[in-house]
């Protein structure tokens, strides 16, 4: 079975490389600063002892005060997993860096989040409607929709 990496231990390792990037370390998760997400994700992807080469899924939730986007990472090589979380506090123009450059599998899921929650992913090659149709107004998964 895939072992979950201990958040606190990994946070210490990341603190040396990216000071201040980890806001909070959970049991098997890390809450990251949004502007550091891409740098940390790239390190997690490429560092040989971590080698997170597979993105299980991207999900997002509206918590009224902020949007939280969750990335479930797995390393096929080492058979370990990690959960990354990023918060997006701007409700008017929520924006996060896209991880499609690191994991192509994020493509459709980021589009879905863009479609249903309205978070725009900077650097996404094709950020358009995916489940709703062209011309649909609003973002239905936001808590203030309707």
């Amino acid at each position: 079975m895939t072992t979950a990496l201990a958040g606190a231990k990994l946070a210490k390792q990341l603190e040396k490389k990216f000071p201040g990037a980890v806001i909070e370390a959970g049991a098997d998760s890390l809450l990251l600063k949004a502007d550091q997400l891409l740098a940390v994700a790239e390190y997690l992807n490429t560092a040989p002892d971590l080698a997170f080469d597979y993105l299980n899924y991207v999900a997002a939730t509206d918590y009224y005060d902020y949007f939280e986007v969750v990335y479930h990472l797995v390393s096929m090589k080492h058979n370990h997993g990690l959960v990354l979380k990023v918060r997006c506090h701007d409700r008017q123009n929520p924006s996060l860096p896209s991880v499609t450059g690191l994991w192509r599998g994020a493509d459709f899921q980021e589009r879905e989040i863009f479609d249903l929650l309205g978070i725009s992913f900077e650097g996404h090659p094709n950020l358009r409607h995916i489940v709703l149709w062209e011309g649909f107004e609003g973002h239905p998964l936001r808590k203030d929709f309707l």
Partner: protein
Amino acid sequence: MEIEELYSRDDVDEREGRQINELMARSQTPIPDPDDWLDEELKRNVLVTSVDAVLGWARRTSLWPVFCFPACCAFELITTAASRFDISRFGMEIIRASPRQGDLMITAGTLTWKMAPQVKRIYDQMAEPKWVIAMGACAISGGIFRSSYSVVPGYNRIIPVDVYLPGCPPRPEALLYAIGLIRKKISQKSLIQEGK
């Protein structure tokens, strides 16, 4: 391959969106049940009664359903077609994948606006005469999803419905009863009303 080539072209999506928005704007009121001819007793039973009888018999005993199973009511429909309930007793076991060969649409499931143009297109492609059973709460009125942003509140917004079958989902027995009603309706239809 260029990365842009992997994605669908903008104009295809824009055309789809336009189509859906136009259909939505057109479909704000339900289409009335096209059964006003059922009361016209006088016009019936003149001239072509025996032709009517033969035509009605032929039509009602070989109703071929069309594929339209967008959601969970489909399982009751599949059960109805399977051995225990067996709609082949009514000559209906051939469920046509092509709408041009079918004459009964059993709308088994929730319809979203994104799917609505396709369902309307399937209905338009069916040859006359054609009938529709709205199967289940979602097909009748949108059911529990009625107020959702993406769900069509009843198939009668986009196509005329002949028989409404309540239930969530209806049992196969109920579907068989609805098919009985459709058969009754078909046998009452006369050539005289055909033009309507």
